């Protein structure tokens, strides 16, 4: 599964993307955030406040309860500030 990061989430993680093997028992976006936060200091800093983090699965906004089943690309980023 391809994981992508943007803006300060990307900076804190220290990488724009990574490919992971989804561990068993990680079923939702919320589960994935908690698992990623435990990987290293950068990930922990990026996901220190999980409620602030927005997520997308295969280019569509999703909330943290969304199941990961069938997802090819999951992205994490701060609230958007375009326009």
């Amino acid at each position, binding site marked *: 599964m391809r994981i*992508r990061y*943007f*803006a*300060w989430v*990307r900076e804190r993680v220290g990488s724009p993307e990574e490919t992971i093997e989804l561990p068993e028992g990680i079923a939702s976006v919320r589960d994935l955030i908690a698992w990623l936060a435990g990987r290293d200091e950068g990930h922990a800093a990026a996901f220190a406040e999980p409620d602030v983090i927005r997520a*997308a699965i295969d*280019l*569509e*906004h999703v909330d943290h309860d969304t199941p990961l089943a069938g997802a090819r690309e999951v*992205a994490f*980023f*701060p*609230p*958007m*500030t*375009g*326009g």
Partner: protein
Amino acid sequence: MPEWKPAIRVQPEPFDAAAEARRMTEGRKDLGALVSFVGLCRDEGGTLEALELEHYPGMAEEAIGAIAREAAERWPVAAITIIHRYGRIAPGEPIVVVLAASAHREAAFEAASFLMDFLKTRAPFWKKEHRRDAGPGDWVAAKASDDAAAGRWRPARGAK
């Protein structure tokens, strides 16, 4: 759904909003109103050197397309053009243009306003400030007032 497609571009280059407006209305006699909104990079009282806009390629186009389709379902608009830049943008330069055309002004005004409110809160772009005195600075924080602006539009019929 309308038969026409909104014109959507996500690009690093500057754009000419007036030329885009001419292109959208050229040869048409059914349009009675054209609303054009251009978002510009301001210098924050002389302290800002530039804005750096990061985006999520692919999702940016998808999200803007979804917002434009929703506007076209809510109001009888006849044409929509949206161009959003990314990369480094200097004070005075345009960041985004939204053009909405319709037979009557109300639909064009409201659709343009709706499009901007949702571009700010739903399109995957992030602004970083480069300060004159301090170099690369902070990411711009999302404003509660922008969420409130998007929240004032009631859900469309049939929406979740």
